[in-house]
């Protein structure tokens, strides 16, 4: 267990009578790419909300590099190196696309308040934000308010923002949700690139199975808030329990190209 970046012990959360995450104990190794799959309502996003600090568990613990972070705020977890993206687009709508990314860099570089210094005094942040926008093919849209982007473009912006954080642990909640099919390859390329850079341990929630198969070292299958099985993509694909869990659960085997 010494190489685990993040680890949960008997993690449980109840919403009233509903147990969304049920006694979940698992650990994720450093510098791996893990995918979490499972039918809708399996508790995948709730699990991310627990890891990132949006929700507090009913019981159980979360360890990051061996230290208990269960009681820490989202902000403190970001400072430790946990970054996440959101399933529903979650950007700053009236700020420009460029500013959305620049704000991430301002936080990452710990610029601080500097209430009487112009933000333009940090040209390296402005330049890096432009580079990042170029990487996600949004450079020409940098001056627009984020709300003016199409849904797919907002997904790309969301991804650009979380990648710009360069977190040690990167939690990606369905980055391709609601994206047009022809935009998925860009996302695949971004993910491949992020994986190849090797700076982050990546955990991905995803329904598009070929994306999962192409990228993952390990796949976790969540059903009803508990771990059904885990293994390499090939192992999981052959597992009869997984197929059964998905029947009626709505597996989406969408083409990505």
């Amino acid at each position, binding site marked *: 267990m010494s190489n685990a970046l993040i680890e949960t012990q008997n993690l449980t959360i109840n919403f009233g009578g509903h147990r969304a995450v049920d006694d979940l104990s698992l650990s994720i190794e450093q510098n791996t790419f893990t995918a979490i799959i499972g039918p809708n309502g399996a508790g995948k996003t709730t699990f991310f909300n627990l890891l*990132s600090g*949006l929700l507090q568990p009913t019981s159980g613990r979360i360890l990051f590099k061996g230290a208990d972070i269960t009681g820490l*705020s*989202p*902000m403190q977890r*970001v*400072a430790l190196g946990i*970054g*996440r993206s*959101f399933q529903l687009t*979650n*950007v*700053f*709508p*009236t*700020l*420009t696309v*460029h*500013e959305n990314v*620049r*704000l*991430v860099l*301002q*936080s*990452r570089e710990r*610029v*601080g*308040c*500097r*209430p*009487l*210094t*112009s*933000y*333009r005094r*940090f040209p390296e942040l*402005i330049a890096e*934000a*432009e580079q990042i926008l170029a990487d996600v093919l949004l*450079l*020409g849209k*940098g*001056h627009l*308010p984020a709300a003016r982007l199409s849904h797919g473009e907002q997904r790309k912006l969301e991804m650009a*923002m979380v990648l710009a*954080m360069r977190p040690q642990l990167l939690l990606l909640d369905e980055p391709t949700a609601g994206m047009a099919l022809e935009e998925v390859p860009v996302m695949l390329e971004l993910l491949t690139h992020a994986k190849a850079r090797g700076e982050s341990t990546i955990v991905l929630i995803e329904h598009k199975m070929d994306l999962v198969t192409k990228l993952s070292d390990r796949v976790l299958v969540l059903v009803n808030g508990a771990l059904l099985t885990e293994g390499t993509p090939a192992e999981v694909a052959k597992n009869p329990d997984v197929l059964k869990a998905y029947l009626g659960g709505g597996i989406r085997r969408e083409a990505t190209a």
Partner: protein
Amino acid sequence: MTAKRWLWASYAVALILLLVLPHAIGVMTRELIGRIFILAVFGMSYDILRGYTGIINLGHAAFFGGGTYIAGIMFTRLGTSASASLLAVALAWAFAVILALVMGQFAFRNTGAGGVLACAMITLAFGEIVRHTAETFRQFTQGADGLTFAVPVIFRDRIGMYYYALLFLVVMTLLLRQFINSPAGRVLQAIRDNEQRARFLGYDVRKYKLLALVTAALAASSAGFMFALLTRFANTDLLSVQNTLNALLFTIVGGTGTLYGAIVGTAFVQLVQSYLLELRGIHEIFARWQIFFGAIYVLVVLYMPLGMVGAFLRIKGSLAYWRTSGGNHTRAGD
């Protein structure tokens, strides 16, 4: 770059006009314009909160009125020497910072969905506590009668006071503009847009809100102090919710989240108000100018939600958008 040159030229022309103006107009108009300069800073301080950070502060008048009262009480008790004046300024600022920190400690505690409403209610309570305190301590404040006081000699010349007010407006506009374009100011705008996401970028939202409140409080308290020098009078209306709503009205009419909107809004509201009051000779309904203000308020909210400056910037932004699609990464409101 010609557009920029035109802009500087128009600033220069406006400044020269404002410098010459007090010699060309009557006493009443000069007083009114001096008042506009000072109240505009109060309006801008409110815009920092509502327009840039998304905080509804219903007790903001406590900072403005507090500045006026501290000036008045100090001038009455300690006289109008230079050292007493400096002490008064220091006290007004200390009062603003301390009250802002205490108020914010309570108001920004609730981060959930009800946070905006909780903040409005708590700030309202703080504002009322300050107003009530001023009403109760009659030996210092003269209670509801209001406090009349003398001001230091250098502020007694009326035309001189006009220039001090103008200088105050220019300096405060530059300072607040610098603030909103600072890294901190940019985070405030992010918090206004999406508080949860700001938190997930690692920003300490509560700390930034406190910074916004302290900044706005310092600006409002300074404006209150200048108001004391101009009017030489303080009463508890300055501390009332009504006065906070005046600041809100200035920003809404002029355009929230634009900073300059507060200046335009203040000028508009004050000029219309004084014009309506002059019309009371024609019909006494014009003495009840609040009625017309209610109507203007509703019309602006319905038909001009961005306010005057906001509407102007949007039209300008659309024109620029059609003309070019170049790499301008700054916000339309810069």
